[in-house]
C-alpha cells in the first residue's frame, strides 16, 4: 500500500542496532540518509507531514517524500538526546542559541513536536546536568543555559577550562555599571581600568585584548549592552547590563562583590543597596511562565 521505506544508511550507529534487535515492526516511514557529520536522525525535504494510512489516492502534495507517520519511542529519545547535546555544545561558547538554528540543525522534520522536544530536553538538562534552559528575553526566541548549581571557588582547581567569567574583568565592569546608576560611558570605564593597569590599546597578560573582550566578546555573549551615544564628538559609547547578566547574577551579588573588593559592607552604599534589595524581591516572586515557548 505504501511505497517501500527508503533506508539510505540511517545515521544510527552500531550501538543502536545492537541495542535494538527487534526492530522489524518499527520500519514505518523512516527517513534516512544524513551526512556523517551532523548528528541528526532525519533530514528530509520540508515537505508535507501527512499521517500514514491516507487513502490510496496518495495525497501527493509534496514532490517525492513518503509520509512521516508516527515516530517510535526510540526516534523521539534520540531526537531529545541530539537536542540536549546541541544545546550543551552551543552554550559552551556562551553564545545564545537561536530557535532557528535549533530547528535547522536538530529538529528538522520533527518540527511539529518542537515544543514537546524542547520541554523534554529542558527537563533532562535540569535533572541530569543541573542546567536550566531559559529564554534570553521574552519572545526573543533565543536561549541560554543557566547553572542551577552555585559555582564554588574550588571548582577552578578541578575544571578543564576558564569557566564563566564570574570574577575578573567582567565582574569589575558589571560592578562599575551598577554603581554608576546602571549605565556608564566607555570613556569612564577606561579611566577606571587604566588605574588597574588595563588599557584598551595594550595587550594584557591575563585578559589578552581587553578592548575586544569588553566591547565585543562580552557583548556577543549578552553580558553587556554597548550602544553609541548620539551626537557625541569624539564618538562615545555607553555600557549597560545585558540580558544574560540579569539571568546569571543579580544586583545584590554584584554589590557584594564590589563591597568585598573595597573591604566594606554592601550597606555602605545605601542607594545601591536599596536598589539591590528591590531587585531581590522581584526575583523572589514566582515566574509568570516556564522557560519553553508555547509554540
Amino acid at each position, binding site marked *: 500500500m505504501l511505497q517501500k521505506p527508503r533506508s539510505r544508511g540511517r545515521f544510527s550507529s552500531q550501538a543502536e542496532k545492537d541495542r535494538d534487535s527487534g526492530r522489524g515492526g518499527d520500519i514505518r516511514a523512516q527517513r534516512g540518509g544524513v551526512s*556523517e557529520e551532523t548528528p541528526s536522525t532525519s533530514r528530509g525535504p520540508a515537505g508535507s507531514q501527512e499521517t500514514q494510512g491516507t487513502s490510496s489516492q496518495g495525497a501527493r502534495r509534496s514532490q517525492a517524500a513518503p509520509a512521516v507517520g508516527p515516530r517510535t519511542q526510540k526516534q523521539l529519545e534520540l531526537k531529545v538526546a541530539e537536542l540536549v547535546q546541541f544545546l550543551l555544545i552551543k552554550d559552551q561558547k556562551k553564545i545564545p542559541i537561536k530557535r532557528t538554528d535549533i530547528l535547522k540543525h536538530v529538529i528538522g522534520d520533527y518540527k511539529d513536536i518542537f515544543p514537546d522536544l524542547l520541554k523534554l530536553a529542558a527537563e533532562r538538562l535540569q535533572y541530569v546536568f543541573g542546567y536550566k534552559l531559559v529564554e534570553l528575553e521574552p519572545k526573543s526566541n533565543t536561549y541560554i543555559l543557566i547553572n542551577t548549581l552555585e559555582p564554588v571557588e574550588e571548582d577552578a582547581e578541578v575544571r578543564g577550562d576558564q569557566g564563566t567569567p564570574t570574577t575578573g574583568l567582567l565582574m569589575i565592569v558589571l560592578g562599575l555599571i551598577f554603581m554608576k546608576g546602571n549605565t556608564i560611558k566607555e570613556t569612564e570605564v577606561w579611566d577606571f581600568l587604566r588605574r588597574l593597569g588595563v588599557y584598551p590599546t595594550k595587550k594584557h597578560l591575563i585578559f589578552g585584548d581587553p578592548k575586544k573582550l569588553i566591547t565585543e566578546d562580552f557583548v556577543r555573549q549578552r553580558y553587556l549592552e554597548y550602544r553609541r551615544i548620539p551626537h557625541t564628538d569624539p564618538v562615545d559609547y555607553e555600557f549597560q547590563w545585558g540580558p544574560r547578566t540579569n539571568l546569571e547574577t543579580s544586583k545584590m551579588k554584584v554589590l557584594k562583590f564590589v563591597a568585598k573588593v573595597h573591604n566594606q559592607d554592601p550597606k555602605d552604599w545605601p542607594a545601591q543597596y536599596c536598589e539591590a534589595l528591590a531587585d531581590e524581591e522581584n526575583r523572589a516572586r514566582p515566574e509568570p511562565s516556564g522557560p519553553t515557548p508555547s509554540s
Partner: protein
Amino acid sequence: MQGSTKRMGIMTDVHRRFLQLLMTHGVLEEWDVKRLQKHCYKVHDSSATVEKLEDFINNINSVLESLYIEIKKGVTEDDGRPIYALVNLATTSISKMATDFAENELDLFRKALELIIDSETGFASSTNILNLVDQLKGKKMRKKEAEHVLQKFVQSKWLIEKEGEFTLHGRAILEMEQYIRETYPDAVKVCNICHGLLIQGQSCETCGIRMHLPCVAKYFQSSPEPRCPHCNDYWPHEIPEVFNPEKEREAGVSKSSKKSLRSRQH
C-alpha cells in the same frame, strides 16, 4: 519504554557538579577523576562516604543512557594509564570535533587519521601529513598553517606527538573507535588480547598478531619466558611494566619524566 529494564540511577547535585566539571575536560586521568569526585562530595555532601568510583560512574551512566552518552573508561596505549571521557554513543563521526574546528581542519585530521591507521607503527610523520594539504576540503591551507593546526590537535588531546610523528590520543580512540572500525574496516588493527582497536602496540614477528602494550604487560606479567599466545613463538619484545598508580605516586615521578616504553616495536 523499549530497551533496558535496568533500574535507572539517581542524580544528585554531587553527580551533577561532577558531570558539569568532567565535561570541561576532553579526557581525564583516573587520579584526577577521583579528585574531582571527592571535590563534588565535599561541596554538596561532606558527611557522606565517597562511593567507589566504578559504582559512582555506573550510576551516572545508567541515567545518561537515555541521552545516548556515557562516561567511558579506557587506557592509554603507551603506558596503560586509565582515562575517562564523556562520549557520544549515537553518532559515528568525529562530530565532537566539528564544533571546534573548521572544515579544512577537520579534513586535515581525517587525513592524519587515515595515515595513522594505515601505518605499521601507528604513527604518521609530520611530513607525510603536510604533503596532503593540497587535497583538503574547504578553504585552502598552507603547510605552515597546517603545522599550527596539528599543534592545536595535540593541545586539545586528539593527537599525541612524539619526535615529529603523530598518533591518536587515548581520547580520540575512546571517542572514535566505533567510527574508525566502521569507516576503515579493512585497515583497522585489533588487539589479540582485549580485541579493542589497536593503534600502537607490539606484534609477533612470526604470525603477525598484535597486542597493546598494557595488554602485553598484563598478559606476560608473571611469565619468565613470554610466548606468543597465537603461535607460541618466543615473544621478541621488551615486556613493559603493568601500570601501578600507587607506585608512581610514591616515587613522586612526574608523568613526563617517566620512562614510558617506546611503542615502535613492530
